[in-house]
């Protein structure tokens, strides 16, 4: 038999297994700090503001930080899972605004609170679902669809508002957004956010769905070949993202006792920053919800700390944008290190 008949029987041998046996402890420490860099960043941030302001480490301020990130935190859970599966909902802030506006209008018209709340949350779910259908089943580019919804849904909210701010309904509706869980110093929105995180984390780490979310984000082709439906889970997560925005709207309206048409403006940036800072990869397939909790708190502490130090509120917008850029830098860094560790170019 001539030589060209046996082409590939002597392919390359096993690649070196860097990362398993080369200095395991150091390697693991490095991997941990890369994965959880946000936790360290959060600690440094807390220590910094603590050292700069007497008011930072007080029960009132800590409660305020948690209360202010609760809504972003609730929306960050489905957003993170969606991003892990390779999709994005950039319209969460706008969806929140629309749900809030409709809720406000319904409460103004003396609709029973429970019904109004149900409608607001369902509307959020429907908005998320509409986006999801376009981005999954119809295969429109998710980021473009999302940007379209981001603008159109906010615009629609302004149309419904027609320049005024629904407010002035029964004050008992304020309980949800402001009251503390009986016997604790914890406000209800924080309790709700914690519950959403726990449910999300269990979904992610303990169910088949969570596993398939990761599979879809890493290698949709392989997931499909394993018989996993390419679109069902992302569509579910779009709906969940909308429901979370609806829930966020209910909490926000309750806290404010009003529904300004700009409610939720900028939340999409805060959510995306928190999720990316928390170590979720923009392209999908990577991340965990504990990191996202740290990411959410990082954003919250940053905003709070800046204001405590006397920065003008406009700076919050600057810091939010810079946090997003920092998240991109972190992602690039972790990819660079991973490439170096793999020994590739």
């Amino acid at each position, binding site marked *: 038999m001539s030589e060209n008949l046996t082409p590939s029987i002597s392919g390359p041998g096993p690649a070196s297994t860097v990362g398993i046996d080369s200095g395991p402890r150091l390697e693991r420490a490095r991997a941990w700090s890369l994965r959880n860099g946000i936790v360290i960043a959060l600690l440094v941030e807390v220590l910094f503001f603590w050292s700069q302001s007497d008011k930072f480490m007080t029960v009132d301020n800590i409660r305020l930080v948690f209360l202010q990130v609760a809504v972003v935190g609730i929306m960050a859970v489905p957003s993170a899972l969606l991003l892990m599966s390779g999709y994005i909902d950039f319209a969460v802030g706008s969806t929140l605004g629309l749900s809030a506006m409709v809720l406000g209008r319904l409460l103004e018209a003396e609709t029973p609170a429970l019904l109004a709340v149900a409608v607001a949350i369902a509307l959020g779910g429907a908005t998320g679902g509409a986006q999801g259908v376009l981005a999954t089943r119809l295969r429109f580019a998710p980021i473009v669809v999302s940007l379209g919804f981001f603008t159109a849904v906010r615009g629609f909210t302004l149309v419904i508002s027609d320049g005024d701010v629904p407010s002035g309904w029964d004050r008992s509706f304020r309980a949800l957004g402001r009251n503390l869980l009986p016997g604790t110093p914890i406000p209800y929105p924080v309790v709700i956010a914690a519950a959403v995180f726990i449910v999300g984390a269990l979904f992610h780490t303990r169910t088949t769905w969570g*596993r398939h979310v990761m599979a879809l984000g890493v290698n949709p082709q392989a997931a499909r070949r394993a018989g996993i439906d390419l679109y069902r889970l992302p569509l579910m997560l779009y709906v969940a993202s909308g429901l979370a925005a609806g829930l966020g709207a209910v909490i926000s309206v309750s806290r404010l006792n009003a529904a300004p048409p700009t409610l939720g403006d900028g939340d999409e940036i805060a959510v995306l920053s928190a999720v990316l800072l928390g170590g979720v990869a923009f392209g999908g397939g990577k991340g965990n919800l504990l990191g996202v909790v740290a990411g959410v708190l990082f954003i919250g502490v940053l905003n709070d700390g800046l204001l405590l130090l006397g920065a003008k509120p406009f700076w919050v917008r600057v810091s939010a944008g810079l946090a997003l850029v920092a998240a991109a830098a972190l992602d690039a860094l972790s990819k660079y290190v991973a490439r170096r560790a793999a020994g590739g170019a």
Partner: protein
Amino acid sequence: MKVENAALEVRHIEKSFGAVKALKGVSLGVRAGEVMGLIGDNGAGKSTLINCLAGIIRPDAGRILLDGEEVTISSPHEARQHGIETVHQDLALIDTLDVSGNLFLNREILSGPRALRWLNKRRMHREAKEILEGLRINIPSVRNAVEKLSGGQRQAVAVGRSVAWGRRIVLMDEPAAALGVEQARLVLELITTLRDRGLAVVLISHNIQAVLDVCSRAVVLRHGEAVADLELEGVTGRDLVQLITTGEMG
């Protein structure tokens, strides 16, 4: 050539991509307990045929029969339900998942009450370890993410998965490509294991020697047509190469 008692039979399968006719009415059959080579040059239609059988693409025309019964395979999920497993050229592994996660992808072991079924990771790890040990596939730990494995180990996981789950038919698209000598031998051994278990195996390979070693029969595809279907007894590598390149045996 009509194959008697075929476990898998395709009749006049056609598939076009735009103006390109990838399969022009291919017919072939493979029996249980038989390893059939599917050979041909690049672009001959081998992978297209495999993808039709794996439920990844739908053929434009033609019939697929399992044990003589006509079936439609409209999704990878259906292929699985028919007992067809596939090893794809690109392995189809989820890099960030661990070895057992990949072995049990979309057939996860669950536990708990009916409404709340949690992943039973411990049992999946244990069973994955048993499966791989049973196949004499040596992986340091089933808890390692497959991205941490060498090329050979990754391939072994992909092949092991199909061997573990294949009930009737296993389709292998270049399962030993880019493997070292030792690992390639292991893959060929796994193929014989499947055969001895009574499964029908279709092996796509450019490695003519490997085809001669494990296959008893081969179908040669050329420009989307089956130009030869022959028992390999007494056939040389030179004959096969000539069939692949010219469509005729000299």
